Each structure stands twice: as structure tokens, then as C-alpha cells.
């Protein structure tokens, strides 16, 4: 996306029919924006109400905003769902997965670009082809397979951090390798040759010359995978289980919502807490996030 361009008035709007057109546009735009934001607003309003107030007046302004902290405390103290634990687990899983996905995908993509042997092309094609496989077709066999492998090597893969991180590497690497492959292709080979002449080994050439150049592409890879992993539900549900030792935020929100009696004060406040980190991140890194998500899809 070109920067700066958004600041000028683009040509398609052309000359509008005077002032009325402009007023209609502004009003319509603002109303639409409000409409899009309403669900978030209602969550915020109702996070500061008691369960009773939520049912009887869901759109009224809260009488006492401090109730939001009471609701948060109730969630944190809830004996059946360890929300803080789930938050920490989500953070650990997301960070570790992103680290292994970006490092290993970059290594893999670089080796596949630079190696001109036929097997390298075949492996790359396999990564690309596998992107069409939907999660639904591998999910049940994967759980059984993880159980068998875990029992065989005596390192449990189900219900553990390393198991789910390994699964995220498997699911995340094909697209990441593909994106990085496209970028690395355009890095001039001369750069790497110069490093070799200066005495760099193949490994050092990668870590000291190629890796720093990949920074802009890493942002795309991190954002695409990060948002997916933070929000993901089915894979954690299947690998970690809904009552396992390790939990994630979507699993915790589901366990609040899944109880027989709908406690909306708790559900909405936990939804608010789940959204908060992403919204804060978006406010600070809006440009990168939009760029990353759009570029990732177009490729």
C-alpha cells in the first residue's frame, strides 16, 4: 500500500455536487462507523453492570463504572476457570509459536530458494499445495496421531505447551515459507556471495546477512500468524482439551459462556478482556497490522 496517498482526495470521488453531497457523505460515513462500533460499545457498557441490570436495561449507561473492576475481580477469582492462567498460557503459546514459525520458516525458505536441486522445488510445491487442506480434514487424525507419537517417544504432545507449539509450526509454516520464499527470491545473490568471499560460512551468511534483511516480511508473518493463534479455538480445544492444565483465552471465554446459566456479566467482561490486548496493539501498530494482513492474503 502506498503511503501518503490516503491523505489526498483520490480521483474517483471526483467533483461532488457541491456542499450537500459532502454533508451526506460525512453523515453517512459517521453513522456507518458508529454502527460498526456499537457492539464493542455495548460490551463496554454492560461490563460495568450487574447481571440483573444487564438483563433489564442492556442499552442503558451504567450507574457505576467501578463495577467493571468488581466484574473483573469475579472473573479472576472464579474457581472453575483460571482466567489469568489462560491469559498467561495464551501469551506463552502465541510468543513461542511465533518465534519458531518465523525462525524455522525463514531458514527453510532461504534453503529452498537458494538450493537449485529438484528436491527443493518438490518440497516447496508440497508446502504450497498443502495450503488448500482445511483444518477439519486433519484435526481428528492429528489428535490420535499425537497420542500415538507421544506414547512412543514418551513425551506427551497432547495437553502441553510444546505439543501445541509444534502443531502451530506445522500449520503455520506452509504459508510463512511461501511468503518468505517470495521475498528472498528478490534478494540479490551477490550480497551473499560477497559474504562468502569474506569468509562467512553458509550458516553465518544466513544469520548475519539474510536474516536482518527479512525484517519487513517478518512483520507480515508475525501479524498473520499472531492474530490467528491468539484467536484460535479448535486446535487448542482438541490439543489441550477444555479442562486441561494448559488453557487459552478462547477456551476460557467458552467455559464462562458454556455454563448452563448464562452469566452475561461474566461473559461480556471476559470478552472485553480477551479483545483488549488486540485492540491496544491495533491502536499502536495499525499501519503494520493492516499492511501485514492485506499483503498476506493477496500473495
Amino acid at each position: 500500500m502506498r503511503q501518503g496517498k490516503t491523505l489526498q482526495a483520490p480521483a474517483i470521488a471526483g467533483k461532488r455536487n457541491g456542499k450537500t453531497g459532502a454533508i451526506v457523505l460525512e453523515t453517512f460515513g459517521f453513522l456507518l462507523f458508529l454502527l460498526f462500533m456499537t457492539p464493542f460499545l455495548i460490551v463496554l457498557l454492560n461490563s460495568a453492570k450487574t447481571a440483573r441490570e444487564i438483563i433489564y436495561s442492556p442499552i442503558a449507561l451504567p450507574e457505576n463504572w467501578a463495577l467493571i473492576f468488581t466484574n473483573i475481580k469475579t472473573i479472576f477469582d472464579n474457581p472453575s476457570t483460571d482466567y489469568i492462567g489462560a491469559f498467561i498460557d495464551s501469551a506463552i503459546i502465541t510468543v513461542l509459536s511465533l518465534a519458531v514459525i518465523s525462525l524455522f520458516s525463514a531458514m527453510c525458505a532461504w534453503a529452498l530458494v537458494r538450493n537449485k536441486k529438484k528436491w527443493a522445488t518438490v518440497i516447496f510445491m508440497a508446502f504450497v499445495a498443502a495450503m488448500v487442506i482445511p483444518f477439519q480434514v486433519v484435526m481428528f487424525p492429528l489428535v490420535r496421531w499425537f497420542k500415538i507419537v507421544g506414547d512412543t517417544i514418551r513425551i506427551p504432545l497432547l495437553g502441553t505447551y510444546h505439543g501445541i507449539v509444534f502443531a502451530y509450526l506445522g500449520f503455520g509454516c506452509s504459508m510463512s515459507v511461501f511468503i518468505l520464499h517470495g521475498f528472498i527470491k528478490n534478494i540479490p545473490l551477490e550480497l551473499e556471495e560477497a559474504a562468502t568471499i569474506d569468509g562467512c560460512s553458509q550458516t553465518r551468511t544466513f544469520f548475519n546477512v539474510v536474516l536482518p534483511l527479512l525484517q519487513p516480511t517478518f512483520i507480515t508473518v508475525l501479524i498473520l500468524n499472531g492474530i490467528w493463534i491468539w484467536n484460535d479455538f479448535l486446535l487448542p480445544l482438541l490439543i489441550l482439551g477444555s479442562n486441561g492444565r494448559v488453557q487459552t483465552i478462547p477456551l476460557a471465554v467458552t467455559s464462562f459462556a458454556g455454563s448452563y446459566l448464562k452469566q452475561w456479566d461474566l461473559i461480556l467482561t471476559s470478552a472485553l478482556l480477551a479483545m483488549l490486548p488486540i485492540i491496544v496493539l491495533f491502536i499502536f501498530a495499525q499501519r503494520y497490522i493492516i499492511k501485514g494482513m492485506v499483503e498476506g492474503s493477496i500473495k
Partner: protein
Amino acid sequence: MKRRGWVDALFIFPCALAFVMVIIFPFFIGIYYSMTNWDGVNPAISWVGLANFTGMFSQPQFLYSFMVTLLYTAINIVLVNVVGFLLSLLATSKARLRNLYRAGFFVPNLIGGIVLGYIWQFLFNNVLLNVGQSLGIGFLSSSLISKPNTVIWAMSFVNTWQYAGYIMMIYVASIQSISDSIMDAASVDGANYFKRISKILIPMMANAFTITIFLTLTTSFKQFDLNFSLTNGGPAMRFMGKAIRSSQLLAMDIYSTANGLNRMAEAQAKAVVFFILLVVFSLVQVYINKRREVEA
């Protein structure tokens, strides 16, 4: 530069290992399981041929899920793209706060389907109901997700709210890549706003439409999270003389066949059919759109 093959192999190894263990093996094991009597409990698994495949086509729930998934996908392709396109016009217009609008429309896309589904369940079952009753709007007097004939539309509405801002961004990128001088020239030649959009902008964006329609098709067809948290497949209705769940899309039907009913092999067979359908539909779509691109 002399490359050492074994160094390359070492570099490829971590990804290749994870990829094979997590996708390739389970994929092929899954195809085998779809032709067995695997139930998730009994360790002895025996071959049953294509029985699971023939069985699913006489199940009212599966047939209904299939139809409703097609309907849901079709509604979304139209709704998400039309709304996304209109939003992109607004986001590239002269509106003062267009950058704020753009960010606002995009935000729902960042929040996971599970969380959004619960929020919208509250909006449909409590907020809209409350508003409808106090204003006396008959249409809203009962929840839109509690009636079989409106539930799919309600789900599409939420999906559009969530996804249109993302599609908008792809259109915005495409609009910005079109040279201003073309639009100015058309304007000078007397083409009005709607003519400029329909005769110049849309044909020039053919490439973007291929991508956006592909994305809406595949994400709608694979929809699970929102389905799970917003309606959980309900409400119940009768179809072909059986009680079925009226908003249970295919992905969720696969999940509930395995989870609620413990019929793992049957769920796996449905997943294989689901995979084939997805590939066929997306190939047909890309083929049609690519031909349009050439013509444009």
C-alpha cells in the same frame, strides 16, 4: 558460492518435520480412517470400504447442513463483497474522517469468531429483543437466532460485520493502484460518478475481485467458530421427517458427528467430502474469475 546440501537439509528439517507430522501424516491417515469403523474408543479398527460415504447422503442433518452451507456461502459472497466495496469507496472518498472509518471497519476482523459469537448472541437475544419490545417492532419481538428461517441471515449479518472491513482493505489497495489520470480523463469526458465506478473502476479491479470472492467463499464454507459460539447449530427444526439443527454448517456437522455422537470414522468421511467440495468450488470460482479478468 558452493552450497552444502546437508546444511540446506538441516535448515529445511524443522519445518519439514512439523509439516509432515501435523499435516501430511494426519491427512493420509484420515483418508484411511474414513473407510474404517474408527469410533475413537475401540483400539481395533477394521476396514469398511465406502460405507461411511454412502451413509452420509441419506442423513437429513448432513443434507441440510450441506444446503445451508451453500446458502450461507452464497449470501456471504454477495453481502460481504457488496458491503466491502461500498466501504472501500467511503474509505477512499473525500470524507474527513476516512482514516478513522477505515480503522473502525477493520477492527472486528481482528477479534476471534468465538468471542464475537458470544457478543452477538447477547446482542440478538438481549439487546435487540429489548429494543424491539420497547419500540414495538414486531420483527424484533423474538430473537433472530431462535428462528430457523432467520438464523442463517443473522449469521451472515454478523459475518459481514466481521469480514467486510478486511475485504474493504483489499479493494482500497486495488483502488489506490489505479492511476488518477484515468478517472480524471473520464470525468472530463462527462462520465458521472456511477458511470466512472461501473465502467472503469470495477472492470479495472477484476484482479481484486478474484481474491476477495475466493476469500469469502473459502472462509464462509469453512465457518466454524462463529457458528459454534453464536448459535451452536440451533434452533431445532424438522427436515425429511427428522429433528435436525437448522444452523449447523458443514464444519460444525463434522465436529458434532465426532464429538457428540462419537462416530469418528463417519465424521472423517464427511471431512474428506468437505475437503473435495472446497477444492472443487474454489477451483471453479478462480477459473471463472480469471476468465473474466482476461476479458476485462
